[in-house]
């Protein structure tokens, strides 16, 4: 070990990003529905009950937008701007009939999740046969679905806020095998890079960065005394397939993921298919 680059690599690996916990505030929550006012009130009650352990009655002020309050996406955005909520609550395919088909979230949600900076919690559509059943039991098991995990502090901050005392928070990261294989394939064709060293170390490095950050989050949440159990998981796999399997087999009650991507206008590459396909799981989109 005798070059600047080698020592720099060691120090860069040592300079870990750590998670510092701070609880988000949900002083104002705005529930957006496309129901008549009376139905909206009933729906509000069931939603409040569903989140009674995390959005505490004394700390959260609830407001409702019903069918008559907005006619278009533009009007909805205007209302959100006017209310300035800390959290938006709504359901899939708002003001759309297409909730029966698992191909989109509907135009209102597509725009809402990208335009506002407020987190949007998306519930299953209320017209589903199992809708009332899905909102009966408060979420106990929350999963944070990360892109890199390392440095995604806001993801953990919100995921921990929605994990009730005694509940379980899963910090998950799946490194995409297809992408990794493509890079390793390119490395195999570069004479200056040792292929064996790259194969041995690249995946380990990627997973270690995620594990280290998740571990620092676990310690920080423990120190914060939230009374939740935190489990960290980082593995190689097929992102969509493996996440689907993890969510279904782990009976996850609530997913938390980033919806925005800096370099594109559409929803985050991983968030979109999960949000569209897992129609019975509530998802908090940041």
């Amino acid at each position, binding site marked *: *070990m005798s*070059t*600047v680059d080698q020592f720099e690599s*060691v*120090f860069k690996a*040592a*300079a*870990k990003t750590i998670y510092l916990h701070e609880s988000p505030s949900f002083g104002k929550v705005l529930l957006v529905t496309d129901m008549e006012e009376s139905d909206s009130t009933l729906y509000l009650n069931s939603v409040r009950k569903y989140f009674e352990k995390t959005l505490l009655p004394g700390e959260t002020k609830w407001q409702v937008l019903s069918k008559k309050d907005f006619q278009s996406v533009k009007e909805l955005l205007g209302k959100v701007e006017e209310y300035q909520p800390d959290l938006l609550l709504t359901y899939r395919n708002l003001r759309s009939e297409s909730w029966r088909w698992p191909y989109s979230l509907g135009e209102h949600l597509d725009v809402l999740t990208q335009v506002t900076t407020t987190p949007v919690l998306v519930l299953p559509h209320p017209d589903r046969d199992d809708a009332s059943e899905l909102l009966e039991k408060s979420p106990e098991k929350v999963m944070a679905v990360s892109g890199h995990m390392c440095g995604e502090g806001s993801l953990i901050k919100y995921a921990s806020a929605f994990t009730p005392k005694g509940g379980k928070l899963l910090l998950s990261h799946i490194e995409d095998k297809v992408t990794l294989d493509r890079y390793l394939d390119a490395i195999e064709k570069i004479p200056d890079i040792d292929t064996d060293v790259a194969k041995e170390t690249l995946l380990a490095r990627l997973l270690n960065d995620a594990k280290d950050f998740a571990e620092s989050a676990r310690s920080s949440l423990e120190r914060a005394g939230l009374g939740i159990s935190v489990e960290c998981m980082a593995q190689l796999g097929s992102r969509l397939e493996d996440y689907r399997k993890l969510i279904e087999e782990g009976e996850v009650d609530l997913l938390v993921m980033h919806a925005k991507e800096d370099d594109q206008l559409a929803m985050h590459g991983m968030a979109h298919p999960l949000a569209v396909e897992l129609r019975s799981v509530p998802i908090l989109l940041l």
Partner: protein
Amino acid sequence: MILCLALEEKIHAKKSLIVGLFSVVALFLGAWFNLLPFTDVSNLVIGGHKISLPVYIPGVDWEVIAIILGSSLFVDVTSKSGLFTWVAVKLTKLSSGDPLRLLILYGVMTVVFSAVLNNVTAMIIVGSLTGVSLKKLNQSEKLLGFLLVEGLLTNIGGLLTLISSVPNIIVGKTAGIEFIDFFLKAAPYVVIATVVTLWLGSRLFKIGSLKTEEEKTSAKNLVAGFDENEGIESPGFFRFGAIMTFVFIGTVAMTSQLPVVNELGLGFVALSFAGIMLVRYKSVADRFYKTIDWDLLFFFVCLFAVINVMEHARVLNLIGDWLMPIMGLGDSAGPAALLVASAAASSVTDNIPLAAMLAKILGAMPEISSNPDSPYWWAVIFGSNLGGNITPIGSASTLVSVTIIHKYGLKLSFAGFVKVALPYAIIQLALGVVYLLITT
């Protein structure tokens, strides 16, 4: 040859090749003019055995080669234990992210690493950590100041012990200065020069403490993310590396007092410790052989061959005669003038041939060679080390610091370096002259 070495970067040639070609020419001319002792080296009798050696072999100081080879291998293998990076990261955390405290701790670390390891390795370790930690602390605008001060401190730290730099090894060995005596003589100057350099660096580059509580908390949280254990592959080897480093320094310091070992010398000590450390990597030891600085080692072998020919050709006597006016200045002004002249010469060319040549010349003067405490030896030691702080090509470690500066996209030309470094170099040289006059 000295001119070509000064222009090494311009002519894009490694120093081993430059000196190698000059050694070929020198040996050829030496043989042509019957200057070389062919008869003596072909009829050597050692321990009752007649040994025949090529004429260019006895001129090489193999002890110096063994010290450099052994200690660089030892440092390279020990660095794999994560020991040096552990110390570096621990000190970073100790600073709590405060820039001034970081400058002081990194400065002290540079001096100590330069003394214990070598100044190039010290600059590589501290320089690469500085780049990473200042970026993490969002203080990248201070990088130039940090790297420059660290580069200058490597040459101060290189003065601390007999094995800290190659000029020390060459001059110290020729003068017969013991490790402990060297350390006791050089340490007070190193402490004073380090403090002054850090003070001046903090003033000139405006590196101060954090002001608000918010800034302090944020910096503390950022450095808390550093994990000192990241570079440690095996805790057992880490502990072994730490123990062996202390034992190595102790053994080097005590070599002249240890029976048997004192006969075998420092080169044997360095090579033995390198061998012991390599046992951990016995199946891949060849990987470490590849990282040895063969350019430096071949440079030394060829350089000694050239100087040997110059000695036989009485060129060194001629240069010695040129030095006589300096010697004639007296016991105070003479060493002071030699120190400044050595520094000036070292600033534009490699300080190793200069030190080797001056050591040979001084060694041939009976009144100086018989006195290890002669101020002339120390004038050459101080001058050849401190001269490296005047220009970026004055020493290998300042060159490394400039390389790191350029790596981070910061602009610093040759003239720009001289302009910034000159106040430090003048103060350090002035301190050196005063110190030499007071202590000898």
